[in-house]
């Protein structure tokens, strides 16, 4: 673990330190410009300008209430009926934070997995086929194939291939969460947003989930909110540190954990608060 305990350089610390990812090799697929989120009149996110490179894992860390989940949920407009989101969310050059955007079409490209495993009270097969059927896919052969590849990508196939018609509610927490990932990738999204996906899981399931995410990186761009700093350090290329509704620091993960430029980040990653 590369955790920085050197607090003697405090004088050299900056207020805010944001280095957007290098475009080379991993073109920017998603970025936000001047994003603000209000819950009623209360502003929950003051400033969130981040860029995300394709086929990379970006971790969003920060103390509770720092706005990282709010930011993540804004990215595929899950906050639509809950909060007011202003600013631009550029996805492959298109601003998806405008009324003309068909959110249902957009959410197919920007999928999401939640903190708590939330399979439907249906069979494993029907859970994964759910979104495909809504899209009008009825061909049994095609469905079978997508269910199989999705489960294989989520590293769940070997455990459930004989039980596809059993209720998804019978799965363990870790399996249920991987089912949710399989369900999200069944529609072949571009970007996968994960909101603390491992916080309800035991250490073994967590480590399996991390392996799965590292595999998925080849096909998807992953943005993950996590409370677990070791997790961020283990799997992500870039890390953004949120505090009190602002992005205080954004840089490569190794930079954030070994050489943070902002005092609060340094305190947080070294475990002095949060």
């Amino acid at each position: 673990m590369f955790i920085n305990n050197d607090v003697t350089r405090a004088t050299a610390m900056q207020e805010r330190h944001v280095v957007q990812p290098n475009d080379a090799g991993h073109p920017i697929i998603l970025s936000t410009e001047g994003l603000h989120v209000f819950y009623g009149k209360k502003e929950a996110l003051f400033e969130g300008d981040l860029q995300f490179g394709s086929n990379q894992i970006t971790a969003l860390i920060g103390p509770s209430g720092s706005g990282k989940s709010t930011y993540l949920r804004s990215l595929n407009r899950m906050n639509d009926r809950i909060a007011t989101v202003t600013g631009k969310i550029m996805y492959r050059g298109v601003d998806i934070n405008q009324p003309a955007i068909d959110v249902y079409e957009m959410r197919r490209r920007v999928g999401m997995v939640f903190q708590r495993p939330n399979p439907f009270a249906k069979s494993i097969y029907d859970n994964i086929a759910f979104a495909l059927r809504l899209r009008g896919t009825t061909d049994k052969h095609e469905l079978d194939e997508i269910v199989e590849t999705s489960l294989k990508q989520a590293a769940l196939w070997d455990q459930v291939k004989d039980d596809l018609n059993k209720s998804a509610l019978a799965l363990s927490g870790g399996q249920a969460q991987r089912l949710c990932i399989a369900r999200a990738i069944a529609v072949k999204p571009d970007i996968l947003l994960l909101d603390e996906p491992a916080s309800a899981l035991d250490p073994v399931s967590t480590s399996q989930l991390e392996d799965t995410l590292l595999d998925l990186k080849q096909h998807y761009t992953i943005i993950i909110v996590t409370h677990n700093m070791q997790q961020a350090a283990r799997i992500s290329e870039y890390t953004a540190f949120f505090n009190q509704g602002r992005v205080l620091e954004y840089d490569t993960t190794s930079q954030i954990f070994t050489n943070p430029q902002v005092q609060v980040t340094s305190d947080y990653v070294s475990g002095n608060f949060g």
Partner: protein
Amino acid sequence: MKTKTTQQLEQQLKRHSKAAKLEIWGRTISLTALLLIVAVVVAIIGFVASKGIATFTSNHVNLGDFLTGKSWNPNITDANGKPEVGALPMIVGSFLITILSAIVATPFAIGTAVFMNEISPNKGAKILQPVTELLVGIPSVVYGFIGLSVVVPTTRAIFGGSGFGILSGTCVLFVMILPTVTSMSADALKSVPRYYREASLALGATQWQTIYKVVLRAATPGLMTAVVFGMARAFGEALAVQMVIGNAALMPNSLVSPSSTLTSVLTTGIGNTVMGSLQNNALWSLALVLLLMSLVFNLIIRLIGRKGRLQ
């Protein structure tokens, strides 16, 4: 051999403290209340059953004739010297009116519940909730009176005849059970976890698809319970129905011909008979049928609830 300190400790621990006594008191009081209610329920069932069975034991009416006979006229004996106590018209009337009003009320109730819960929770809470609660509070005699002065003449104008009948009864009962079914449906939808909706929306489902494919499916046991509750209420409603149904103990040959239900015959007849007579016993038999049906409805609700939990 115990030392003195352990003996003291044992004494202290074994002494009944005030808290322990209160505990016993509380348990006794609540157990008494429970036993009292059980006793009342058992007594009612026992009383109605003993009275209702008298028709078959002391008046020697055949149970089959009672349930399938089409002619209700306890004062008259037929050619074979048997009293005419065929309850089929009332049983059919009760079931018809119950099922019809449930069929009419269910779509309205579920639609309202979906609007209140899913589509516009704010307006739902501000407008629909109080309106629904208000509907529950209106006394049934008021419903009956409105039925008598508005529904019956309208039915008469459209379909001819007297206007009294199952159709008018259905119209009145539908409004009466609507709030029950609506608020119970709303509760059923409310109990569907929020993360089901989020999961569905995040997969690109529209709100309607989410409601239709996820929320309503997950709430099905609760919605069925709501409908059966509404039916139980409709089955047992007496006064309002009696005011608009026409009270003719005849097999209903159309929805607008005067007919009767178990409850309406009971309310109109029970005051005019002498305890212990055949006329009186026959009415108790009707009450027994009514009670048994209520138990069946309760049983159905419990079965649905258990099935819902297993899922």
